[in-house]
């Protein structure tokens, strides 16, 4: 009896080891390219390091210096401003696109393809195009606004509009998220709508009480991914504004880049990266925790 039990345990252990062996390519990559860099980044954040020679241990002095640097706080403010604007707007645009793509429109596959294209184009290429489109003198956008008798907006040169221009670039990725929302819409069983119709619900009530609750798992996914990407927003600002005008688009990721590669302050940049990592992790955990109050997993 005892012998038999031992054999089962050793069999389980063997299965476990075999399983670990099978997923080892992923585990090794995870530790080597994710866990180790994150930990070594926190170590680097405690040093003074120019990129050459040996890092010199200075404890928490980088963090003290950051607390005194107004540009660091500006960059955090800009990043949160961007995330708070771009992420909810992205959810709304993506749901609107998905709802429209779910209608009985014959040539809908054409729109799906067209809306998806900017999502697969490199962000830097879309940003380069936007520099032309948003040009205050020769750009297409101001030309079209001129038709509506709206005076020309200096999108990238005016600190009131520059962050909105970056938010606008982010919306070009909404076609991609829109397709994910479309699959979620398709997964909603038709009988729920039939039942709602029998109860006398109109379009708006059907959307509010059937569609939206069943989209909440996808909204949760979009918000988590959106915050992760939004906190690291870099390419549009780097290409389109370089952090200007008046540091209005100096996002935290750009602040990291400038410190690390322009001012050779790798230690300081690593400290900021660590702070950004912690902020992202805390927000992700907080949203996951909050999800039990507003995410509906009824279908699954």
């Amino acid at each position, binding site marked *: 009896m005892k012998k038999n039990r031992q054999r089962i345990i050793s069999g389980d252990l063997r299965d476990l080891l075999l399983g670990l062996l099978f997923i080892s390519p992923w585990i090794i990559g995870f530790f080597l390219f994710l866990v180790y860099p994150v930990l070594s980044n926190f170590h680097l954040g405690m040093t003074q390091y120019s990129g050459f020679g040996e890092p010199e241990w200075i404890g928490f002095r980088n963090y003290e210096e950051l607390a005194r640097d107004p540009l660091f706080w500006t960059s955090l403010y800009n990043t949160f401003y961007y995330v708070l604007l771009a992420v909810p707007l992205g959810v709304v645009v993506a749901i609107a696109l998905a709802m429209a793509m779910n209608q009985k429109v014959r040539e809908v596959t054409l729109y799906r393809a*067209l809306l998806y294209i900017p999502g697969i*184009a490199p962000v830097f290429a879309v940003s380069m195009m936007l520099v032309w*489109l948003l040009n205050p003198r020769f750009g297409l956008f101001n030309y079209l606004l001129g038709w509506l008798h709206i005076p020309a907006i200096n999108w990238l040169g005016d600190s009131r509009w520059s962050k909105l221009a970056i938010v606008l670039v982010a919306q070009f990725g909404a076609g991609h998220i829109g397709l994910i929302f479309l699959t979620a819409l398709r997964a909603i069983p038709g009988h729920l709508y039939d039942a709602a119709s029998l109860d006398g619900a109109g379009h708006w009530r059907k959307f509010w009480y059937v569609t939206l609750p069943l989209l909440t798992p996808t909204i949760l996914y979009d918000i988590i991914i959106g915050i992760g990407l939004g906190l690291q927003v870099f390419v549009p600002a780097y290409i389109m504004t370089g952090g200007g005008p008046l540091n209005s688009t100096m996002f935290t990721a750009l602040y990291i880049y400038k410190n690390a590669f322009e001012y050779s302050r790798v230690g300081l940049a690593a400290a900021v990266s660590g702070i950004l990592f912690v902020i992202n992790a805390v927000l992700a955990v907080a949203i996951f925790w909050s999800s039990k109050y507003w995410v509906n997993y009824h279908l699954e």
Partner: protein
Amino acid sequence: MIHMGEAVQTKESAPLQPLVSRIFLIGMSLFYISPIYWMFVTALKSDKELANFPPTLWPKEIVWGNFEQAPELSLSSPT
């Protein structure tokens, strides 16, 4: 009574909804395709036309020279 009224309402709004969706999709598609459209149109414009205001939506004269020059420029080193 209520049911009859609603049946009429849905009948009216049924053909309207795809139309609204179609207009919305066309508008958004034009917006989303605008960077790529602008890229190709700009590539075909002459240097002189690029400085025009208001910008031309379609090149007055199509210049293929930019495509001829691009490989030469990318091959020659900048320094």
